[in-house]
Structures are given as C-alpha cells and as structure tokens.
C-alpha cells in the first residue's frame, strides 16, 4: 500500500511536470461586478507598479499577455493602440505577463524588457512573479483582458475577454469588444457585451 502511495506521488510529480492544469474559466476568478484586487508587480523599468499609483485614472485595461503566445503577439500593435487611445482619457493599459519564466523561457523578465523595447510598449509590462495575481483574476489564457472601473468601492470588473473579434486581421474586425466597452464606460453607459471568449495560449504554470 505504501509503495503504491509513493508510486502515486511519483506519478503525480511526473504528470505535474508534463501538463499545465487549466482551471475552468467559468468557475474561477472574477465575474462582472466583482472588485478586482490591486497588486504590486515589477515593471520592466525595475519599478513596482500598483493600480493605486494612478490617482487620476477612471479605470484600467489590465491585459494578461506575454512574449511567446502567437495570439498575444498578433495583438501587440492593437494593445499599444488601445493604450494610446485611452490613456489620455483616463483608462491606461497595464500589461501583465502571467507565465512562469522557468517553464516558458521566452517570457523571462529580460525577454520582456527586450520585447517591450522592440515594440515600443507605451504601458507598464509587469511580471506576475510568483503567479499570485492571474489566478485571482481568473485569467486562463493570453491575451485576456479585464476592464476595470475605478469607483469609491474599488476597481470594479466591467468587461472580461478578448480584444476584438478577429485576431488574424485588425482591418477585418467587426466587433471591437474592448473599445466598445471602454467607450461605454467613459460615456457612463451600460456595456453591451460584457464577456467574450477566444482561443488563447494557456498560462504556463
């Protein structure tokens, strides 16, 4: 019996090494209307960044993204455009790399710096060191967007999902989910589409 247990444990350790466990996105993490946690994570410039640093913000586009996922890469230019479009209106992009660099070497802090420099990121690009933030949000893939509205009660989750409806070709987008959501938020209107789904790369734990 004991050997069985040890064997089982051994198999468990083995299988943990081989698989990433994907939590069911419908069960875990934030729902629309929840208060999102703040964090203090290291930016590529070496400084720690928290949502509370942004005194004048009306909200945030917290985007879990990374260097290595083809979908994340396909959206880099659009994430930059979102930041340029909405930072001045009080809704800056805060990008967080949720991947474990020990599992995904291409997502190391150094590689993040490189990629941000190459692409000219205009927003903080934070490493979720210790991977404690993304599970609280319930992010399951990259890119995965959370639109937060700053209120007296805290940062309220207003939209969760994809950036738009066409990862392949920005010019063929019919529904710009995030833009529509931020525009509605800034106009004080109800966001019509509050959650969307997309194929993405599982977060590497």
């Amino acid at each position, binding site marked *: 019996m004991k050997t069985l247990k040890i064997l089982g444990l051994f198999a468990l350790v083995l*299988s943990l090494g*081989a*698989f*990433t*466990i*994907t939590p*069911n*996105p*419908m069960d875990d993490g934030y729902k629309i209307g929840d208060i999102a946690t703040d964090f203090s994570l290291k930016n590529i410039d070496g400084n720690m960044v928290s949502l509370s640093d942004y005194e004048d913000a009306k909200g945030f586009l917290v985007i879990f993204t990374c260097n*290595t*996922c*083809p979908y994340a*890469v*396909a959206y880099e230019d659009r994430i930059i455009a979102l930041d340029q479009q909405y930072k001045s209106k009080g809704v800056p992009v805060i990008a967080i790399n949720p991947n474990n660099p020990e599992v*995904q*070497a*291409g997502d190391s802090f150094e590689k993040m710096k490189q990629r941000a420099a190459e692409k000219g990121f205009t927003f903080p690009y934070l490493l979720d060191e210790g991977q404690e933030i993304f599970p609280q949000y319930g992010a*399951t*893939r990259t890119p995965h967007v959370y639109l937060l509205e700053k209120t007296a009660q805290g940062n309220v989750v207003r939209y969760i*999902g*994809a950036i738009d*409806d*066409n*990862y*392949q*070709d920005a010019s*063929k987008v019919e*529904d710009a*989910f995030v833009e529509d959501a931020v525009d509605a938020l800034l106009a004080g209107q109800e966001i019509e589409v509050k959650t*969307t*789904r*997309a*194929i*993405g*790369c*599982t977060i*590497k734990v």
Partner: protein
Amino acid sequence: MKNLLLLGMASLILLSSCRNKDGKEKAEDTVAESQVDQNQSTKEEAVKFPVYDFEGFEPLLHKEDDKTYIVNFWATWCKPCIAELPYFEKVNAEQKDNNVEVILVSLDMPSMWKSRLEPFVENKKIESEVVILDDPKQNDWIPKVAEEWGGGIPATLIYNKDKRSFYERGFTYDELNTELNKFLN
C-alpha cells in the same frame, strides 16, 4: 464535402498571397514573431489538411452514425496539447474496431500550417484525421462547440448520437479511456 475542400484550398491560395513566409523552424514552445505576422507576402503551396471555417466544420460535431467521435482541439504551439496527443493517437489505434474515431482539430494560425503543422504531423507520424479550423470569429463559434468552453486548449469533445461531453482540460491515457468508456456499451 469535396466542394468544401476545394473551397478551402482556393481560399487558402488566395490567403497565402498575403501571408508571411517564415525562415527557420523554431523550438517547439516558442513562436517567432515573424511567424505570426500576417501581413507580409509570399507564395505557399496548399496545405495537406482540410481547412474549414466554423460553418464548414460544424457537421463534424454532429455526425449521427454509429461511431463515437473524439474531437480534440489543439495547436502545435500549445505545449499541453502536444503532451496529450500520443494518448489520442493510441486510443484511435486501439479503439478503431470499437467504432471510435479521433479527429484532431488544429487551431494553428495560417502562417504555421506549412511551417509547423505539416512537419509536426509528419514527424510524429500522426494517424488520426487532422483538420484545420480557421475561423477568427471565435467568440461566435466557441459557445457553439460547447456552451461551457472558455476558449482554453487543449479541449476535447466526445460524442455519439446519444450523448456528448466536453472537457476543457488535458487528458492522461487512463483518463481518456475512462471518459471514452462512458460512451461505449
């Protein structure tokens, strides 16, 4: 069916005129930026596998014959997908006589079909049927595969004409057999 295939091929050829040709093969789990840059041009041959948009693909999720289908959604860039593929291959080989068929649905991006997907299938000598689902309107079609699917892969649908179950997770060989056995007998 044949028309669809032809249509897929034709659209592929059209598409490929505005697609990027990438240089070398990269390590399995990292994808060079150039490989996903959709806007550079080159000419490519048609890919070996049938390419469907969701409308064309959907009938594969609703066959009403006597078989049990294991429909696995994967991509070459998805590490846990690659890890579980051998189990699907094994089950496909072992359960053929039990009227079980595995369909591997690649969600690789168009720029990866020739550079990554084809060599991968060839090198791993994959015997199960491989099809490509190429439909960027993911928010529309993901819930049509399964209402509960958030979009993570690996994901697997097992169904026959009486019953269907969806799993947004990876499988071990034993787990896959356990689930499959619920559909047999």
